[in-house]
């Protein structure tokens, strides 16, 4: 089981890398047919990654979210999934070019941290923990995509302002489309983030975790939540457009990355299973 899971991961990795190469060629040649090919190859990668997770789950005997390897594979998977769903709704050009490297990097980091499956420690054997993890992964997938769109937005705006339109025209999604993407991804991501945090709090309360509310990770998560709430409020109520939304999406992304790669492994008192 574990062998099959690892082999599927490698196949998925190769497919993602192939899809990325196709998108690079597409970017250079601008052949529309290649976009479709790239999407199909990436979708095949996603299918194999799904198999990886399913098989890993069977061999571990639980939903695979424990440790760096499992959790990063999960995050990469949720990003790829969110991207595919958004792609099928919005038909945006060239987004694969920016999403796929992120997925590939996450999978590489995951692979470096590879460990064989372990039994769940008793503290994690709980439905609400699994709910917490799944909901959080969905939120993270959406919010990473929003942050990525924010980065492209700012780069593109700067290029347009500096009259470097040549590298932009027809190659990057339009500012309007990116803005919509940031907004919609956050609109979906924030409720999931809220639900995930609530599940975590309920778990901490019922398990009597001592002073969980001053844990650095919890504080950072609250901060991220506030940023995204501000983004949605600004967009809906205060006519914030474009740049400001992009900055907020990026700030949120930075906080999420700090949580994942600094707070969870090094700072948090109790939330160390993901590290």
């Amino acid at each position: 089981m574990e062998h099959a899971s690892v082999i599927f991961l490698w196949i998925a990795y190769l497919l993602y890398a192939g899809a990325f190469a196709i998108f690079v060629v597409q970017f250079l040649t601008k052949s529309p047919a290649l976009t479709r090919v790239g999407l199909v190859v990436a979708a095949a990668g996603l299918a194999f990654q799904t198999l990886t997770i399913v098989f890993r789950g069977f061999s571990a005997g639980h939903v695979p979210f424990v440790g760096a390897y499992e959790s990063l594979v999960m995050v990469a998977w949720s990003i790829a999934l969110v991207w595919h769903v958004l792609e099928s709704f919005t038909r945006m050009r060239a987004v694969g070019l920016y999403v796929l490297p992120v997925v590939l990097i996450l999978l590489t980091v995951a692979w470096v941290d590879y460990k064989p499956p372990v039994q769940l420690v008793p503290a994690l054997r709980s439905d609400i923990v699994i709910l917490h993890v799944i909901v959080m992964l969905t939120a993270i997938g959406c919010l990473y995509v929003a942050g990525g769109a924010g980065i492209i937005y700012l780069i593109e705006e700067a290029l347009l302002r500096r009259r470097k339109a040549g590298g932009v025209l027809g190659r990057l999604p339009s500012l309007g489309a990116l803005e919509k993407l940031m907004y919609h991804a956050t609109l979906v991501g924030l409720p999931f983030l809220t639900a995930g945090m609530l599940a975590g709090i309920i778990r901490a309360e019922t398990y009597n975790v001592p002073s969980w509310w001053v844990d650095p990770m919890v504080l950072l998560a609250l901060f991220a939540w506030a940023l995204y709430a501000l983004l949605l409020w600004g967009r809906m109520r205060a006519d914030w457009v474009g740049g400001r939304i992009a900055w907020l999406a990026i700030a949120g992304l930075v906080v999420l990355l700090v949580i994942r790669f600094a707070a969870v492994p090094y700072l948090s008192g109790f939330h160390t299973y993901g590290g």
Partner: protein
Amino acid sequence: MLVVVTGISHKTASLELRERLALDEAAALRVAQELLDGGAACEALALSTCNRTELYTYAGDSPAARQAAIAVLARHAGADVRELESSLYSYSGDGAIAHLFRVTSSLDSMVIGEAQIVAQVKAAYQQACEGGCTSVVFNRLFRHALEVGKRVRTETAIGERPVSVSSAAVELALQVFGKFKDHTVLIVGAGETSELTATHLKAHGIESILVTNRTFAAARELAHRVGGRAVPFEDLEAHVAAADIVISSTSAPHYVITRERVERALRRRRHRPIFFIDIAVPRDLDPEIDRVRNAYLYDIDDLQHVVEQNRGEREKEAHHAERIVEEELRSVNDWLRSLEVVPTIATLRESVEKIRRAELERLGGKLGDLSDEQRAQVDMLTASIVNKILHLPTVKMKEVAGSQECYLYVAAVRTLFDLSGNGAAPRSGGGAAADDAATDASGAETTGTADPPGATVHHLRGAGTDNA
């Protein structure tokens, strides 16, 4: 037999000369027919666009075909042959075919990558075809050329990037807004470029166009032309607030729209972005506008710069296109070579000999009773039947080998005996054309060779038309 092209283009001739040599549809057909009737060519086609006038011929004697083409052109323009000489170019054989492919791929156009040329070549071909001026070779060659044009457009990005100021402006606006849905454009001042830009925007889905001008009548006139609505100049700020794209081209000596005005307008429209295009010289729009959040300003220099960059891109793509042209040239050459007499006779003999051997082998068992000597006699008998049957066609083909229309016989033989030979098999269209050509060619022979070659080809015209 060679393809020969003779003509002038924007690269060699002044606009004045191009105007004199321009041919309308009827004239183009007349010129082609004159060439055929004069006997200098077996097939002829005249291509005339605003940037070129070219005569394509398929002829046995290329210098003669060239002279005839020049004479016809000069006569048409009412000019002296010597006057034209210096502006003319002429290619034959590979050079001519490569030229045709480059023309259809827009590589020879004034604006590389422009899309109209394919349609123009197509129209010229259809006309010549219906007028009975093309046959086996041109029917195939021009269809191939149109496909090359299509291939270049799909496989390279040669036509992707806009290279006019107005289309670059539209492209930039699209980059900001994504797609035009409920967007509004405001035209300030009535200029040609702003009208052109508005038309482009409309083609991309913008429905609401506002036009304003200091003289209201002028605004109304332009609004009428572009299908928009004229609005009074006094409420400029309100109109800016209502517009997503503002195109300005007044002759005002000072800024018509200032930064403060834009800031107020943006507040009014809840900071939804505005894209400003300033085509006026001196400028109408305060350059400071570009510093306002959610306001983007491109002036004429910026747009020119985008156009320059895009031209560069297109030239890069042109290299890919040249490679495609070379590739296609090879494939068409293979086919043209197959229209030569000697290899065709060899292929015909080979194919018949193959049939004879196969039949002998099939009969092998039943001939078991025969002695070796008898067997050799059967072999000789069959060989001599085959030789006798092939003798006359072989001699006849060698007879016509020197004549202009020999390729029509070759095409007929290749079709009747299904010889693909050293060239690619004729395509469905080309094959059918050759078929019809064969019928006419034999008809021409029975009526006697007194007919000038031009007249023979003339007959064949009806054939091509059905396949067009």
